[in-house]
């Protein structure tokens, strides 16, 4: 795990939590939308909070997919569940809302869960070779020290730039 990867996980957490809360704030300003009046959804997007919320959530989706490209699902999900904790803490310290004892217990449990996976390997699954992209299969070959395929001169060039420091 590099610093940049931790940064991506932090981004997933922050953008997810911020997107949810900004969008929900915006939708409360917009008010009820009836299922029979779907065109009013277009006007909802004109609300700046709704628009910013959607942008934040789009960033969340891109970062989440990036994280899933190099880490297990069972690593990314608990690691980014700190977003729930962030929401509760911001409710307490920014919005000065009352946070009940049950909710504090929830915060403790989630933080404990995140603590359990912190420091453990992020990736344990290995796709079958044929499912893997040729680029990454070549990268593995280079790592294992086996000779690169004879037809893979291009792959060799790529590998030299792909292998992480």
């Amino acid at each position: 795990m590099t610093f940049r990867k931790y940064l991506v996980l932090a981004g997933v957490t922050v953008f997810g939590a911020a997107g949810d809360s900004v969008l929900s704030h915006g939708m409360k300003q917009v008010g009820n939308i009836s299922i029979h009046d779907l065109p009013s959804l277009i006007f909802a997007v004109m609300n700046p909070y709704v628009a910013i919320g959607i942008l934040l959530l789009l960033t969340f989706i891109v970062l989440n997919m990036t994280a899933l490209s190099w880490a297990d699902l069972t690593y990314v999900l608990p690691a980014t569940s700190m977003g729930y904790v962030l929401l509760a803490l911001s409710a307490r310290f920014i919005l000065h809302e009352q946070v009940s004892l049950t909710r504090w217990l929830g915060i403790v449990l989630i933080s404990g869960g995140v603590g359990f996976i912190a420091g453990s390997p992020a990736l344990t699954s290995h796709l079958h070779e044929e499912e893997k992209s040729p680029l990454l299969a070549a990268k593995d070959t280079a790592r294992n020290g086996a000779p690169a395929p004879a037809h893979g001169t291009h792959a060799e060039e790529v590998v030299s730039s792909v292998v992480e420091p």
Partner: protein
Amino acid sequence: MKHAYIWGGILTIAFFSVVGDVLLARAMKQVGDVHALWRSAGLWTVVSRVASNPNIFMGVAAMTVAFFTLLFALSWGDLSLVAPAAASLTFIGNAFAAKIFLHEKVDRRRWIAAVLVAAGVALLAG
């Protein structure tokens, strides 16, 4: 009877959320490490590889079904029951599904993490 509808809805939401998460995770593993790919082959390769992966679209479709089921379930049951129950079940379901379908090594540490987070989410959102 209403209870059966609500819990049926919660299970359906959790099921399609798990399917969506697993398909998306599988798709991104097939795409490969985005950072490495971007550096070696450029952003366009990353985008085209993501856009041409059918698992991405099936995953998004499953998440869309989960989202609309949530909207329906909210018209039958309280937000304070439906949302945390579905989120908790999704965490546990994902641990099983990741072990079976993604061949992740879900060791004791990860089980405990999944259970703690699921319980925490239930308490926090309930």
